[in-house]
């Protein structure tokens, strides 16, 4: 959070060091973005755009270039359509499916989301769809207790699709507002596990028309270029509707989501900023972009 609040940032230093907006300047800017994990393709595209923009607006003074840069970055992030970081709530039961690779923060994010929705006055239920990892059900259970919401679960090792079926049924019969479904972490190149996820998705859609209303992909801000492949593959399999960028409280910048947004148009909906219940914030493109440059 500390690095994300102000504009007292690397970009300022960067700008201050240069009197002219020349090649050296662009080169250093490029390096800052690469070190934030934005990735080559997007950085090069960006640099071309920026050079053009700077030329077009005839910006010579480095102090003006700062705003041109951040505008451009935010614009790339938003890519045309209005930003969609709101959760798509249904009229009746809203089902949210949480997906992602191992250890990125799915279960923790579910706890935080439940807390958030509950504070908004909604009734929430959780589904322990990770029946594989040791202690996963107990972990979600602890979150359920902390937040004060019910957790639908079966024994370890049972079929996740069956858990979802159960959960959706109870959510409907108890008339809860939001059901958030946990799934086991899986690497996107594991075909069997991705098929299993598709099955879980199918069960949910079959039981509740229009569900899942959100498929949230948890991405670890520490992850580098592989996050792009994660986003692509999970999107193909489960029609991801949004990203939760976790662990942004560390020193990693999560620059890859800029590239993901640019290429796949998946919006980031929330950012994770710690391990506590309220360490979740709606994604703010402006803050995020400034954060890319923060020391």
């Amino acid at each position, binding site marked *: 959070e500390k690095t994300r609040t102000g504009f007292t940032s690397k970009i300022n230093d960067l700008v201050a060091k240069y009197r002219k907006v020349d090649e050296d300047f662009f080169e250093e800017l490029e*390096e800052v973005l*690469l*070190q*934030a*994990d934005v*990735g*080559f393709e997007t950085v090069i595209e960006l640099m071309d755009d920026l050079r053009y923009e700077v030329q077009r607006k005839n910006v010579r003074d480095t102090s003006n270039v700062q705003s041109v840069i951040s505008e451009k970055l935010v614009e790339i992030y938003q890519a045309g359509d209005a930003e969609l970081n709101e959760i798509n709530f249904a009229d009746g039961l809203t089902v949210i499916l949480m997906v992602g*690779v*191992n*250890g*990125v*923060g799915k279960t923790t994010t579910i*706890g935080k989301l439940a807390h958030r929705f509950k504070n908004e006055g909604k009734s929430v239920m959780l589904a322990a769809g990770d029946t*594989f*990892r*040791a*202690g*996963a059900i*107990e*972990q979600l*259970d*602890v*979150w359920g207790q*902390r937040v004060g919401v019910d957790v639908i679960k079966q024994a*370890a090792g049972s079929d996740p699709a069956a858990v979802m079926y159960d959960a959706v049924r109870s959510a409907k019969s108890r008339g809860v507002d939001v059901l958030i479904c946990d799934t086991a972490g899986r*690497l*996107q*190149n*594991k075909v069997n596990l991705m098929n299993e996820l598709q099955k879980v998705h199918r069960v949910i859609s079959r039981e509740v028309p229009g569900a899942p209303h959100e498929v949230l992909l948890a991405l*670890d801000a*520490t*992850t*580098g*270029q*592989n*996050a*792009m*492949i994660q986003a*692509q593959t999970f999107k193909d399999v489960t029609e991801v509707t949004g990203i939760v960028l976790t*662990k942004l*409280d*560390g*020193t*990693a*910048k999560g*620059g*890859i989501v800029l590239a993901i947004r640019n290429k796949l148009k998946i919006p980031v909906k929330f950012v994770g900023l710690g*391990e506590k219940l309220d360490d979740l914030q709606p994604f703010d493109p402006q803050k995020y972009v400034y954060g890319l440059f923060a020391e």
Partner: protein
Amino acid sequence: MAFEGLSERLQGTMTKIKGKGKVTEADVKDMMREVRFALIEADVNLKVVKEFVKKVSERAAGSDVMESLTPGQQVVKIVKDELTELMGGEESKINFSTKQPTVIMMVGLQGAGKTTTTGKLAGLLRKKHNRKPLLVAADVYRPAAIQQLETIGKQLTIPVFSKGTDMSPVEIARQAIEHAKAEHMDTVIIDTAGRLHVDEDLMQELKDIRALKEPDEIFLVVDAMTGQDAVNVAQSFDEAIGISGVVLTKLDGDTRGGAALSIRTVTQKPIKFIGMGEKLDALDVFHPERMASRILGMGDMLSLIEKA
């Protein structure tokens, strides 16, 4: 949609050179740009890339590339050789203490794979080294971290020392070491909570655990998908507690794993094991050469070059 490997990247440059029939310094420079691209796309830290490219450029500017009929392959070979060398030898051995018990500490960022690797390592030590391990549940923060380790212990039939979440991790570790001594268990593996390298209080906790009995190994567990930040993480953990080796997890995925090079370069500590899956036997020895090929996205190209 996986990224192109270095060899494919060099194709374009190669076509240009073929037309001319002679490799110029400018061509070498072009090729080096591709090397830089490939490494950054593989998540090698930018600063590490720069140093590395400088070194490779010097070699590539030498006659072997300039006069070669297959300059692209020569460059790939040089890059791969240098990478392999930088990555160090195969060092999967574990340092055992002469004074019982041997203490191994597992540390790292949240979700890196410490708890799973604790189990895997215990299984390996029992099987390959005939050790009697004790797993220590010193993560009192993450919800159900203790149950997770206990489940893993049960799956392996290896005992787990746990004291719930009310006792401090330092005290738990202290008692565990005493317990191991009394029960003649020769290896204590301490599973610590995930923490950010910038979290001073929690880094202090690691120092305090470390001070109980000098660990024979302190393994930094790192997710192979880590990007540019790997250098900060590795450097901070190493500076704070002095790691003895690295375990790179989740290499069963399709990441290039450039973090391996970054970490190795900044810490000079060996990468000892790699995690190749969620199952408790999915722990392999680290092979520098395979890692180098992987970072470069070479795959099958490798054998071709080796024969050339």
